[in-house]
């Protein structure tokens, strides 16, 4: 199955310490469609997509640490997410995420995004990880499909 990837808010993983920390980068370019609306005459990466970059970075840390045991990794809680500066097209942001705890079904993190020496975003957040089959055993095949797709995606991100 060829995956058409659009909603991915990181481009590359640059550092990974299992169970502990991950660093990723994202390029921002004018051809990203939502920039036309956010904002016209002043394009900047939307704050929630900066958070999404942190969430994705942390999710990869969890997936690799738990060896892709779970299909679903979702944001459970985000706190004190501060937007300190703007990230315009042509910029690149480096996300650093540190795990505070990584357990079987929950994990918590401290994340930060920096561009050209300036902190753009800071956040504290927790994720929850589970398989759909836990609630509905008939979904086991769907879990397997998601996990397979995420393993393929990982191969592209960590190159």
């Amino acid at each position, binding site marked *: 199955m060829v995956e058409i990837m659009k909603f991915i808010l990181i481009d590359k993983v640059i550092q990974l310490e299992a169970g502990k920390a991950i660093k990723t980068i994202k390029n921002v370019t004018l051809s990203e469609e939502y920039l036309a609306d956010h904002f016209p005459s002043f394009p900047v990466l939307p704050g929630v997509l900066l958070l999404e970059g942190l969430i994705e970075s942390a999710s990869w840390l969890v997936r690799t640490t738990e060896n892709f045991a779970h299909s679903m990794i979702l944001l459970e809680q985000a*706190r*004190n997410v*501060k*937007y*300190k500066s703007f990230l315009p097209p042509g910029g690149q942001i480096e996300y650093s995420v540190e795990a505070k705890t990584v357990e079987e079904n929950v994990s918590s993190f401290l994340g930060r995004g920096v561009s050209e020496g300036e902190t753009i975003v800071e956040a*504290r957040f927790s994720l929850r990880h589970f398989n759909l089959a836990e609630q509905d055993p008939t979904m086991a095949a769907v879990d397997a499909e998601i996990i397979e797709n995420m393993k393929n995606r990982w191969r592209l991100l960590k190159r």
Partner: protein
Amino acid sequence: MAQSRDEILQQVRQVLVDALGADDDEVTTEATLMGDLGAESIDFLDIVFRLEKAFDVKIPREELFPAENLMSDPEFVKDGKLTEKGLSEIKEKMPHTDLASFASDPDINKLGNLFTVGAIVNYLEAKLTTAGS
């Protein structure tokens, strides 16, 4: 019903823990909001809103954290330090802060150190007393 200083302190500490994501034991009376607890502009606004709700008072932001406007005025700041005028302006606007050590070296970069947890408690103690009377 007047609140004791300790009751005020506990509520202030809870507000700061929530607003700044700080650990309970980091929020000591001497802790500075900016230096020790990592507070920034948006956090100062968040803190003021939360204190207003917690203590049911109106807190004009310039009353609790006035220094920001001060810092850009050339009458008050010269060569990175507060002038005599600047110092007396601070004394007038921020009676809730501890100016003794600051006055000996009124370095503008150190202005942030005036905003301590204790300063907020002092401000609220005074504010709540007048509100009650």
